């Protein structure tokens, strides 16, 4: 513990040193244009990396990601979109001429595949950083290994350890805090009861912790339910939830998209969607697939917590995201959506960190991870607030988000509620805000 702390400080110092060198070198070499040359934007428009249109040919900087892939669950879009962004960076000067070589590994929610993927990347391929990890279990299995190896992962987490450990920071805020946000929206409808239903997977108790506290704060009776996945009979589940919630109650769901869809459809097919005050859903429901599958009739009735901006947002980073996806993202099967947004943002943060190391940096696992850890105040219009890594013993940089709902014509998701903070009655949110205030 103590040794970790010391090592943490050393790496932090190194990181700050790297940052200062970058700034100094930048200033001296490009006559005052330092801030623009490393900010990945030109004339108000976002660009990939240096944005100079020159193909990077220098020695490669190896990065990698681990994503879940198995029948029914596929998070590879996150790694693949990070790769698409790096390809764009490579076509635009790379990292001061260095190419980013990116490897995506998959795991199939077994301990051995998750652990093998991490060891293969770090010890086999010898990547110097992990960017875009997104897996149901990977963070739980590997976080100790990352701590041993000094890797600071920039990921998109699901497992508890993607939030509760020192060496993993996520673009999104994960099931617990996203459920908090969904519950907050549902409670704004002034219900007399809140039912929180989740899939029966490890971490349910942790995930439910925040919702319970928020319901208590609003003095609304709360009940936690769990369902086994895959759900065989969504109609019965929907019926049970509606009966338990009652006419003036709300139902908050925390499921993967296909399972949430089964329940919501079950409700729709039985004409139950208006039998409760509102339905709310944590972030996985935020896909246009879901909006299109449900069709019209859910506008304002279903609030989905959104950790990221709308994919159609008219803002520089969102515009770049769409153009990179179009030009480099042939492999991203799901297309526009929160998965690829997360991969894009992770790639962009990592690129920023690498550029901040300065043109003459050496890229080793030690220096690159120090740079990742040193990321702070990273501004993007895809997130509500600036993103940071820092040396916290846990990471929750994304704790302010939006609410979206299926559009009136039932085709896409549209915004229902702008950026709002997750209620600090959830102690970890309060702790994260305290860390932010110190920075």
């Amino acid at each position, binding site marked *: 513990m103590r040794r970790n702390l010391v090592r943490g400080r050393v790496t932090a110092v190194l990181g700050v040193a790297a940052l200062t060198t970058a700034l100094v070198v930048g200033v001296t070499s490009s006559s005052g244009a330092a801030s623009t040359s490393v900010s990945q934007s030109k004339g108000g428009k976002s660009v990939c990396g240096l944005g100079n249109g020159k193909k990077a040919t220098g020695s490669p900087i190896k990065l990698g990601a681990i994503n879940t892939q*198995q029948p029914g669950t596929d998070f590879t879009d996150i790694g693949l979109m990070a790769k698409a962004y790096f390809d764009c960076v490579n076509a635009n000067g790379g990292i001061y001429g260095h190419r980013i070589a990116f490897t*995506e590994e998959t795991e199939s929610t*077994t301990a051995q595949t998750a652990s093998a993927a991490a060891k293969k990347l770090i010890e*086999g391929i010898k990547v110097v950083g992990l960017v875009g990890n997104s897996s149901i*279990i990977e963070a*739980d299995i590997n976080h100790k290994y990352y701590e041993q190896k000094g890797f600071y992962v920039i990921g998109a987490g699901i497992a508890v350890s993607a939030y509760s450990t020192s060496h993993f920071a996520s673009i999104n805020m994960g099931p617990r805090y996203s459920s908090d946000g969904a519950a907050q929206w549902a409670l704004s409808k002034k219900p007399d009861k809140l039912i929180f239903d989740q899939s029966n997977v490890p971490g349910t108790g942790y995930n439910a912790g925040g919702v319970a506290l928020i319901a208590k704060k609003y003095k609304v009776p709360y009940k936690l339910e*769990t369902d086994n996945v895959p759900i065989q009979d969504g109609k019965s589940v929907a019926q049970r939830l509606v009966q338990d919630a009652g006419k003036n109650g709300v139902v908050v769901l925390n499921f993967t998209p296909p399972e949430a869809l089964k329940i919501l459809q079950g409700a729709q097919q039985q004409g139950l969607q208006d039998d409760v005050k509102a339905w709310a859903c944590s972030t996985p429901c935020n896909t246009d697939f879901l909006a299109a599958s449900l069709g019209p009739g859910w506008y304002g009735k279903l609030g989905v917590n959104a950790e990221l901006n709308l994919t159609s947002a008219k803002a520089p980073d969102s515009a770049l995201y769409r153009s990179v996806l179009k030009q480099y993202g042939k492999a991203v099967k799901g297309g526009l959506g929160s998965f690829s947004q997360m991969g894009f943002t992770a790639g962009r943060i990592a690129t920023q960190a690498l550029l901040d190391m300065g043109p003459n940096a050496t890229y080793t696992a030690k220096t690159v991870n120090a740079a990742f850890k040193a990321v702070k105040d990273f501004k993007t219009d895809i997130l509500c607030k600036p993103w940071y890594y820092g040396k916290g013993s846990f990471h929750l940089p994304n704790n302010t988000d939006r609410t979206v709902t299926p559009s009136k014509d039932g085709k896409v998701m549209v915004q229902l509620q702008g950026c709002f903070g997750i209620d600090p009655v959830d102690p970890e949110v309060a702790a994260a805000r305290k860390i932010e205030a110190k920075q």
Partner: protein
Amino acid sequence: MRLPALGTIRVSRTDGIRALVVLGLMAIGLFLLPAVLTVDWMGVLAAAACYTITALGLGILVGRVGLVSMGQVAILEIGAWIGARLLFATSLPYPVVIVITAILTGVIGTIIGLPALRLSGLYLALITLMLAGAVTILLSVTNFPNGAGGFLGYDSSTTIPPSIRRPSIADSDTGFWRYALVVTLIMFLVALWHVRSKPGRAWAAIRQSEPSAMAAGINITFYKLWALLLASTLTGVGGALLAGSSGQLYQTAFSTDQSIQLLAVVLMGGAYTLWGALVAGFLFSVVPHILDLWHLNSSLLLILFGVGVLQVLTTAPQGIAVQFPKDMANLGRLIWRGVRLVVPARGGAGA
């Protein structure tokens, strides 16, 4: 038909060769593989060892007795749960945990199979298929132990779950692979002893013809039960090893389709020889890692296993473990014949 008494196992000359092969394989596994392969392989190989032991049990059931379990992964899941629970709750040495897990899993597996045993084999297959679904549900409700107290040993609000303990002499991935390999060898010897002694001969008789086995005075239900017990016990050993190998267990790793895939690889490997279990473990655990290495979609694995099962069942029922050496021998003969054809022709031209 008189059965020789238990314990009189004849040793033939081919056994000597086999023992040498096994020794060679062990040396390769213990020393060569850790030296030439990167560390990510060690976890994969350890898992392959766990599934090999499970496949060994299932292979005996399928190949020797003609019973098919379509839910062996569910039994493995029970074994892994018991193993993990014991490893968290007690400080018993790892081998003791393996033995207790094996006994408990063996008993549970047998009890579950009991009602179907007296009916045709198809009933056992189907009831085990349903078991696979049911155990999955049961364990997604109870979850795997994560170091908490109580009977279930699971606390859903744990934020940093501790790892399941490994034996102190095998804490590293490489160490655990070696440990698992030694356990696998012991389990092969246990299986061999069964196959070579009285139960093995009884199974062979039952497989040939149940009526004539009955006429020969063999207690069919007893020996079927024995096979079921042995298969479940071996699976329990696999489960206890898998718990330590994985560090953390998730119900997602034991889904119904995994059960079907395990049966598929056992059939592909070949259930009539114990070597088939090695092939099965390789197919189940190592091939996915290879596919991943080549960045191929994991769905390809399912297609591969599906084609493999159909191919093996229709054309080579003895499985890869028997068929592959035959194919290689045929290929060798073919090449030799080709060489013999080419060489004299040249000689003729030169003269």
